[in-house]
């Protein structure tokens, strides 16, 4: 028997509230399944479980519970149910009402992630990838997008896959899924307080240093223009994707920027899970992870980024996306300023910022030309690295962006 605990969805979370269970008591769960929706100041978060077995004793809905509180018990597959084992305190009172509330969820269990989807890899097995367009169309057509076989990049479900699934579907259309999700309007007040708390902690605890480098972007933008000219609008890449991938690749040589500083010890991470700062409409900011950026091709990263932005804005992030970032990238984009001086999100130890891409007079080979450029900046933690190493990282980042075809 193992406890499934209220996760800390970021350094700034103190309590959370289960607003929906997506599994019924007695259901079989596997690592990576989304089992509950927890409401936090970052919106309603799909919480994944990292245990295998049979889930029981679900915590009550709508109650503020501290991080680390027991939300459920998971019994190992071959573990016999201890008939007389008393349910944990919190869950005991909740069993009856919670079971009643859960009936609709039990009637429509979420489709489990495919055990080995097309193109399944370590990270692909987390969840079937689908593009936002595909999901929107699936909703319009009443198609269960999780049941569609993806033929896109990395096994992603594309718009065409959804439309194919809709036409090949047996005649009686599925009834439109009831609006099972709880409303998740974001109250900017709590989010602002949480950002303030995390940033105050960062400024208090992390001895920051800041570096910046102006990077010529001619090669990257030419490559991108050529790629996008040949691609339908739904497959075009944004510069942000090149920048994020270049960060992940450049980190290979400077591992002391990628990882977490916990209890006085830096724990480097071999995987690069890039937190991407996403501004919310109406104010606020969240920086959920793109997982395993170093291993993914650009089209797949683009699809995942589009999906992440869309879910962040609608308050539908997954718990691993909030707990896993090993570094953050903030990209001001084409409406932003020229440079950003970042504040590290603890317990991470670095943040990479990109300003707006700006055309500048640029000296090269003894002549002056007009070249698009971007200011790449690094905020990093002096407890783990120093400016010399940070400079090596920015130099490597600039070099990678001169060879976009290798990203």
């Amino acid at each position, binding site marked *: 028997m193992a406890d499934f605990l209220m996760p800390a969805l970021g350094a700034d979370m103190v309590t959370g509230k289960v607003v929906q269970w997506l599994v019924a008591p007695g259901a079989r769960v596997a690592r990576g399944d989304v089992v509950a929706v927890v409401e936090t100041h970052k919106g309603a978060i799909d919480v994944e479980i990292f245990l295998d077995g049979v889930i029981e004793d679900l915590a009550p809905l709508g109650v503020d519970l501290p991080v680390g509180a027991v939300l459920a018990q998971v019994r190992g597959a071959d573990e016999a149910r201890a008939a007389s084992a008393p349910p944990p305190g919190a869950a005991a009172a909740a069993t009856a009402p919670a079971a009643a509330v859960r009936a609709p969820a039990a009637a429509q269990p979420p489709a489990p992630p495919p055990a080995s989807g097309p193109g399944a890899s370590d990270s692909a097995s987390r969840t079937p990838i689908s593009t936002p367009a595909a999901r929107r169309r699936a909703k319009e057509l009443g198609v269960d997008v999780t049941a569609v076989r993806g033929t896109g990049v990395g096994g992603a479900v594309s718009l065409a896959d959804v439309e194919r699934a809709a036409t090949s579907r047996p005649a009686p259309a599925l009834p439109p899924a009831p609006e099972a999700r709880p409303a998740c309007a974001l109250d900017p007040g709590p989010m602002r307080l949480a950002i303030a708390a995390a940033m105050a902690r960062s400024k208090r605890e992390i001895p920051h240093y800041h570096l910046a480098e102006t990077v010529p972007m001619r090669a990257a933008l030419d490559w991108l223009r050529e790629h996008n000219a040949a691609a339908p609008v739904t497959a075009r890449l944004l510069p942000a994707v090149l920048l994020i991938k270049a960060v992940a690749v450049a980190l290979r040589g400077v591992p002391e920027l990628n990882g977490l500083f916990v209890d006085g010890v830096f724990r480097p991470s071999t995987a690069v899970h890039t937190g991407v700062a996403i501004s919310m409409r109406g104010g606020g900011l969240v920086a959920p992870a793109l997982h395993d950026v170093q291993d993914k091709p650009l089209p797949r990263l683009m699809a995942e980024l589009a999906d992440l932005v869309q879910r962040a804005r609608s308050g539908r992030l997954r718990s691993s996306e909030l707990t896993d970032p090993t570094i953050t990238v903030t990209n001001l*984009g084409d409406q932003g300023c020229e440079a950003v001086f970042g504040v590290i999100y603890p317990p991470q130890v670095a943040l990479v910022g990109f300003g707006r891409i700006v055309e500048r007079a640029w000296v090269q080979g003894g002549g002056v030309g007009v070249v698009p450029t971007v200011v790449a900046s690094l905020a990093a933690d002096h407890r783990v690295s120093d400016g010399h190493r940070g400079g090596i990282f920015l130099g490597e980042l600039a070099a990678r962006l001169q060879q976009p075809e290798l990203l």
Partner: protein
Amino acid sequence: MDESDIRRGVIAALTEVAPEVDAGALSPAQSLRRQVDLDSMDWLNVIVGWHRRFGIDIPEADYAQLSSIDAVVRYIAARLPAPR
């Protein structure tokens, strides 16, 4: 599809991405992206929305022409199959 149908579709795709926008308050001749806070991902999604609604190809090289609501309506009208 006449001009007002196109205009409705143009605005519908926009408010799908930016639901907080009050379409009535937009100046159709003024810069769209200065009036509506659209980052590059939003902008791409709006263009995908127009592409879907009107079934026309919008090459990246043409993005600069899509400066205002009026300009977008003109751009799309010129690319739809002629009526009649």
